[in-house]
């Protein structure tokens, strides 16, 4: 099966049959493929009215190039996104390892039964100004 291309001066099909373009093109969904093409007759009739119109081969080449750019762009975007996620995780870890001045310190063994951060930790206030006690911790 060949395309009938009116712009081909040699009367030859401009592009050989390429079944992967119809059946295995990953950039087209199944529903898109099933839409019958009605553009061909229109293009044939419009071809003479525009001298600057792309040939079929050029159009397909252009589409192929677009696909390559799309694939390359996707790979670059994925890489950037992955880098951002990794950076965020590293930042979170480092911020957790730096306790505030009044909070309980995080230690390598802070997990498990004596985990402090999970319970909100403990902290002391300003010990420079004496205040009367409001309660007492003593041997009971």
């Amino acid at each position: 099966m060949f395309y009938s291309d009116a712009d081909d001066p040699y009367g030859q099909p401009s592009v050989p049959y390429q079944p992967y373009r119809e059946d295995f093109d990953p950039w087209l969904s199944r529903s898109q493929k099933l839409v019958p093409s009605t553009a061909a007759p229109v293009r044939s009739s419009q071809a003479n009215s525009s001298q600057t119109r792309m040939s079929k081969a050029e159009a397909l080449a252009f589409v192929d190039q677009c696909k390559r750019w799309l694939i390359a762009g996707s790979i670059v975007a994925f890489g950037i996104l992955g880098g951002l996620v990794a950076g965020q995780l590293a930042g979170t870890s480092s911020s957790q390892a730096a306790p505030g001045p009044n909070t309980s310190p995080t230690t390598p063994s802070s997990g498990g039964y004596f985990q402090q951060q999970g319970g909100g930790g403990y902290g002391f206030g300003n010990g420079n100004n004496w205040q009367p006690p409001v309660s007492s911790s003593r041997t009971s």
Partner: protein
Amino acid sequence: MASETVITGNHLYPVRVPPELMHVPSGMAGSHFRAMGTTISVLLPEEHLQHGEEIVRSLFADWEQTLSRFLPESELSQLNRLAGKPVVVSELLFTVLERALMAAEATDGLYDPTLLNQLMQLGYDRSFDELPAELPAVEHSTSPGGRWRDIHIDQALHLVILPSGVGVDFGGIAKGMAVDAALEKLRQEGISTALVNAGGDLAVQGVPVMEQQWPIEVEGKTQSWVIPLHHGAMATSGVSRRHWKQGEQERHHLVDPRTGLPAQSGLWSVTVAAARCEQAEVAAKVAFLLGIEQGSQFLLRYGLAGLFVQGDGSWQAIGSWPKEAMMQEGEKEVRR
């Protein structure tokens, strides 16, 4: 008691201030009641005092009825009588037992909830309020602890099997957990500022209006200090109160599971600050058993702060414990 006073600058207060005589921050109100063999104190915003006190009082009553080893009909006492048999227990008893076993595991058995028999042999067989200061000598063989490793629990069924001849005494961990649970319950009821103190095991949430912290008295052997707790919990283990004589032997309630006898670490008390009161209670007891050197390492390993008071009255602060508050309190004098 009335002759014990501390002078700090212009402030004068007894060393062992009764809870009802403690300072009450502006906008707050206090309440006190007896439960779990000790005095429970709460500080709450004035507008929440009645509701909040009911919540805390009800919670402690439930916990005591379930977990006291001194009440013959408590669920714990029934469980102890059924040692060796499978028993389905309430969610509360199961939860506390499960946490106690976790604490035992985390401390390599230095916290041991299965020392009931050892305590009974040492004479601590009734509520401390009813315990005479002197008991007759009793011939008995001492045995170390560690039987907590033989307790079987099934979480799905809330099933517990104690080893035959073994009894559970939760000690302070139940009080600490009750304090944490009370604060959580208050928080659920929309009371975000509170202090709950169960005989010296305390925890706070929020800060009173116009205040920046909760000044907490920490009692030493010859003096006391005021430590500014901002958030978290604090608990003290020591031998100043629960001690007695058995024949010629001095006894106290902090039994070392490695020997089955009262600990001889040379310490008077250990106070620990932690995120939760349960953790502070267990850590204070374990640090006391370990002594000042190993106990300090233990606290540092878990990022805890603590104060060790030795038998001669000297002290050592560990971790982020606010030493500046201790130094400033050096002006204090104790009259006896």
